[in-house]
């Protein structure tokens, strides 16, 4: 099923939850709505589900305007952050609920319901829990049951609102992989909301990055991570170092460091910010005759194959400490120790003209 969202807006008093959102969800894809809290991602999901109404704009399912369709007629499966399982029912009855409440003619027979529920419980690998009550299950099990329950009505779309938000880190990781696999097996158009960028990058086919009711960028995990459209996306996705500099006629300066900035040939001595990912920072002991930024090692975290260095810049080009990631081999080669002076150079950086607080708003 395709979902199309046209010019959707929603206001809660003075707060703009959704500001003219346009989005096309492709059939069979797993889409992540990613953003900080208050970015409107949950509101968008709830409008798609029909749990919330928009002030203006349209929601189309398979090119058909469904904006005013009742929740019951949308054929949407919804999974809540806190599971919302029915406490007074067994796991079996929870999953069977959607089938049993169907009007007379469409309601399957008891045997069929039993078969279908059993299949679903097997799908989520919890068929041995059929007779238990929700409070006897762990969080991860409950969320899987919630998923089975949502799938029971054979929805055209599956919507998940922070599905792993209430779970601990280990279970969250397991369920993430499991959801991805389930989605690949079923090929159902799915949208999930998350504020966890790692989760979005790992699970989704495409990511919609949202901020303050607007879409900042839409793209594959690779695209949004490697080519962030703006400073907000840069800072929200993964760790990033920020340097202050200037751009002038196709060139940029960060301290003594000069880099090409062919995107800005017309710039006349503009303030600019440069973003550099930690793994794009080259660390050297000496200057090697090329310009670089001086820094002092504040902290070393050398667990695993990647060594993380926390550096204090000495050229005042970065307000915060700089993080660099180098391989263990390189770390040994340089024989770095806490307090050492090093010279750093970005291998790759992205420039955005203006000041940081301007760029982010």
């Amino acid at each position, binding site marked *: 099923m395709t979902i199309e969202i046209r010019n959707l807006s929603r206001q809660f008093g003075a707060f703009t939850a959704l500001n003219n959102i346009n989005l096309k969800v492709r059939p069979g894809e797993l889409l992540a709505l990613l953003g900080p809290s208050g970015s409107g991602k949950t509101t968008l999901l709830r409008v798609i589900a029909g*749990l919330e109404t928009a002030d203006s704009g349209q929601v189309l399912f398979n090119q058909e305007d469904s904006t005013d369709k009742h929740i019951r007629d949308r054929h949407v499966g919804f999974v*809540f952050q806190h599971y*919302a399982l029915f*406490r*007074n029912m067994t796991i079996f009855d929870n999953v069977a609920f959607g089938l049993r*409440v169907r009007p007379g003619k469409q309601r399957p027979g008891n045997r069929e319901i039993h078969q279908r529920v059993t299949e679903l419980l097997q799908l989520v690998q919890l068929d041995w829990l059929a007779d238990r009550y929700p409070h006897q299950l762990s969080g991860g099990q409950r969320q899987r049951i919630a998923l089975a329950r949502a799938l029971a*009505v054979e929805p055209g779309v599956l919507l998940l609102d922070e599905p792993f938000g209430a779970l601990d880190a280990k279970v969250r990781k397991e369920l993430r992989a499991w959801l991805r696999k389930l989605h690949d097996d079923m090929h159902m158009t799915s949208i999930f909301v998350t504020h966890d960028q790692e989760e979005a990058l790992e699970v989704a086919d495409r990511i919609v990055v949202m901020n303050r009711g607007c879409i900042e960028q839409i793209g594959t995990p690779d695209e949004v991570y490697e080519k962030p459209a703006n400073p907000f996306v840069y800072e929200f996705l993964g760790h990033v170092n920020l340097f202050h500099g200037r751009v002038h006629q196709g060139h940029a300066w960060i301290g003594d460091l000069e880099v090409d900035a062919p995107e800005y040939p017309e710039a006349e001595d503009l303030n600019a910010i440069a973003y550099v990912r930690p793994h794009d920072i080259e660390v050297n002991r000496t200057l090697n005759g090329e310009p670089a930024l001086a820094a002092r090692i504040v902290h070393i975290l050398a667990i695993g194959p990647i060594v993380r260095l926390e550096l204090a810049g000495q050229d005042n080009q970065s307000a915060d400490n700089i993080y660099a990631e180098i391989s263990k081999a390189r770390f040994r080669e340089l024989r770095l120790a806490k307090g050492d002076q090093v010279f750093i150079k970005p291998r790759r950086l992205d420039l955005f003209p203006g000041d940081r607080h301007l760029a982010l708003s």
Partner: protein
Amino acid sequence: MSNHKYHSGKHHSGKRHSVLPGFNLALGFTLLYLSLIVLIPLSAAFIHTAQLTWPEFWNTVTAPRVVASYRLTFGASLAAATVNAWFGLLVAWVLVRYPFPGKRLVDALIDLPFALPTSVAGITLTAIYAGNGWLGQYLEPLGIRVAFTPAGVFVALTFIGLPFVVRTVQPVLEDIEKELEEAAAMLGATRWQTFRYIIFPAVLPALTTGFALAFARAIGEYGSVIFIAGNIPMVSEITPLLIITKLEQYDYAGATAIAVVMLVISFILLLIINLLQWQVRRRSTKA
């Protein structure tokens, strides 16, 4: 479980340690308090009754006038508590679910039957439902007589029982997560199915508690009923009134005999309600 093993292994006295101190003191005080306030007065009723011989006791408690009063007291109480259960649920639902002007005022009004002296309630209800009262003057031509009939007893008992149901159901309704209803709707349930299968089972334990409280209160009610009942022997006499009548005639043993019967019936009924409630609660276990 491992906790239990640890303790029984370590302390042969069987004494358990709890993070909450003062268990012995608190339990001792509770038992003493209950004895002083509840058990001793109640046992006095039994002891006093023992002055009667068995046939005397039997004749007193099965006199036709007394039996008629049992029927009225328990029948009207049951009817009033049942009506209160349904309408109390409705009132609680409206108060929790819908914003409307004057909501806080209505909410405060619910407690009025708690606070009002029962005799005031009785006089007010009588004035309204009497043949020349506000409502009575319209009901009487229709052939509906409320004041000075069993119907009046029912009205008074309904009045005093309402807050019990509303106040027990209200917090439970407030606590039901909106998400449960949303989940039900997403699965295709109608509003009615959502209420029937999701909301109602969740409030049922509280509803039975409210029902039991309203029922218990109605059985013991005296002040508000005697004015409106008219107290016609065999027709609109409630059992507590008969007890008072006997006391006024210095028939203390007879009064306590009836009291004992009431006590036993009330106890059995409350026990049954509690058992039902326990079952309901067991099925809809807390998360």
